[in-house]
């Protein structure tokens, strides 16, 4: 085999790793959409907010420092301590759960039974509110998020695969961060599936996703389940935000990863957890391979920006429910 082939394989592997992150973001959408029929436009901003919260807590920053300073004429900025990563993660999860509870209590509880477009509009409002709120709470500077994940290419893989392609090939270059992200995502997905399948709350969650009226009649509180799924989506957003944030810093552009999740959802179906995973991997691998094989040599590159959407459009035309989504059948 020629070295070119192995570079192709490397592109494929890196595509898989990127796909895992897409899948992670898409998963947050699926959780909420399945249980409540809400397409949560704010998922990307939630990832940003979660990552911002984690980074700021680690740095020991005082929340709402600017507001406090402006009101009381003080000059505080941080507490002067660094919070251990694990504790900071727990605190961030707490913040996301509180956020979930507030969203349900203040917004969606009052919109039960409204048309999907209204719910969607509410999430747009929520997205912009949360963005501003994140600014107010933690400031708008770009933050680095260092939670001890090793960066850079994995030496071991590189050294042990170098022999494959002869003299022109120096081994697969795979980022350590991507490997960690893939592992974390795998554990997270396995955990979520086990939770949905075997726990009492998971069963109730699936019940609510299926039929609200029936769920009520067997004693399930819709309010509780919705807070639960928003919390889970917040947790997933935290993981996604941490992985992307560790890669490229915690800044506003982080919220745009939500846009990457849209084609994944169209491919995998809005209601399927496995669909989000497989869809994410296909988009990740597809856009990297397309760029490597077709984009860069023939089209002048930068195909990664639009490739996923073309695939998604093809799916919308030929299989609108996605690969794994529930079939859309309507009797007239």
């Amino acid at each position, binding site marked *: 085999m020629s070295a070119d082939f192995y570079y192709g394989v490397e592109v494929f592997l890196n595509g898989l790793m990127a796909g895992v992150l897409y899948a992670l973001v898409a998963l947050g959408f699926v959780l909420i959409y399945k249980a409540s029929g809400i397409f949560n436009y704010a998922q990307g901003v939630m990832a940003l907010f979660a990552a911002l919260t984690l980074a700021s807590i680690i740095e020991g920053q005082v929340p709402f420092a600017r507001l406090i300073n402006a009101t009381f004429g003080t000059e505080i900025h941080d507490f002067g301590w660094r919070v251990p990563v694990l504790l900071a993660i727990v605190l961030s999860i707490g913040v996301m759960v509180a956020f979930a509870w507030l969203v349900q209590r203040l917004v969606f509880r009052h919109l039960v039974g409204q048309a999907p477009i209204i719910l969607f509009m509410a999430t747009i409002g929520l997205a912009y509110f949360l963005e501003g709120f994140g600014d107010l709470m933690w400031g708008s500077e770009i933050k680095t998020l260092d939670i001890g994940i090793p960066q850079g290419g994995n030496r071991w893989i590189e050294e042990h695969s170098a022999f494959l392609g002869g003299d022109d090939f120096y081994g697969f270059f795979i980022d350590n961060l991507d490997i960690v992200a893939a592992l974390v995502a795998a554990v997270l997905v396995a955990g979520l599936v086990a939770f949905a399948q075997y*726990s009492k*709350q998971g069963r109730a969650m699936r019940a609510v996703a*299926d*039929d609200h009226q*029936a*769920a009520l*009649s067997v004693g399930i509180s819709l309010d509780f389940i919705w807070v639960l799924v928003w919390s889970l989506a917040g947790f997933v957003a935290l993981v996604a935000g941490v992985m992307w944030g560790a890669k490229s810093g915690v800044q506003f552009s982080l919220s745009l990863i939500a846009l990457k999740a849209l084609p994944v959802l169209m491919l995998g179906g809005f209601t399927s957890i496995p669909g989000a995973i497989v869809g994410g991997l296909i988009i990740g691998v597809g856009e990297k391979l397309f760029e490597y094989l077709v984009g860069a040599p023939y089209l002048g590159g930068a195909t990664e920006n639009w490739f996923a959407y073309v695939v998604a459009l093809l799916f919308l035309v030929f299989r609108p429910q996605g690969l794994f989504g529930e079939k859309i059948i309507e009797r007239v």
Partner: protein
Amino acid sequence: MQDAGTTITADGRTIGPVVMEMKNITLRFGGVVAIQDISFDIREGEIRAIIGPNGAGKSSMLNVISGFYVPQEGEVWFKGEKRPPMKPFEVARQGIARTFQNIALFEGMTVLDNIMTGRLTRMKAGLLAQMIWKGRAEEEEIENREAVEKIIDFLEIQHIRKTPVGRLPYGLKKRVELARALAAEPSILLLDEPMAGMNVEEKEDMSRFILDVNDEYGTTIALIEHDMGVVMDLSDRVVVMDYGKKIGDGTPDEVRNNQAVIDAYLGVAHD
């Protein structure tokens, strides 16, 4: 006789004291009065029917009992206590299970999973306990599975245990819904037109199951039906509604001979 302790029916079943009492219930939707000042009671162990022509307010009444509607006036008394306004899921947790006229099942789940959801209110192990104390949760799961399997046997749906509900024919869906309600081991079982849309054979099956449930488990049943014939054979006592008002209440025989009831069903002109 209404407030007496227990009575024994002709076929040997024991009917206990009043378990639920509706007092002067009035329900309005805007200007439309769906239920107007209706009172009746349900006694432990009996089969109580609410009948009436279409649009009489029967389903509204069932929805009041199960908490889906909150009446503007009147009181609901359950087990000797006045019930505060409640959400449907809270009513379900109190031990009042129901079925729906147009069937509300979890179409994507199997028959077994559907019936298991009926046990959700009985599962005690919390989220953390399930993760930390696995043994306890497993024990509970096994207990619940046993109870559910018994119900599956009882309603003769073993052959479709693993079938997704969405694929079942109408009659079987109705039976699965009954099984799910029964799985909660409710103090009162509310059935909303359990025989609607069924053919004669299915109706006979369903009647038999309703009688058997009442007989075997001693479950108190309140059911709604507009088909008078079936109900008269099933129930111990019947409430008759028409245009949101109660026009009769008593044993099937008493109701059958009630002039107002005959008029309502034969369509005598209302003024």
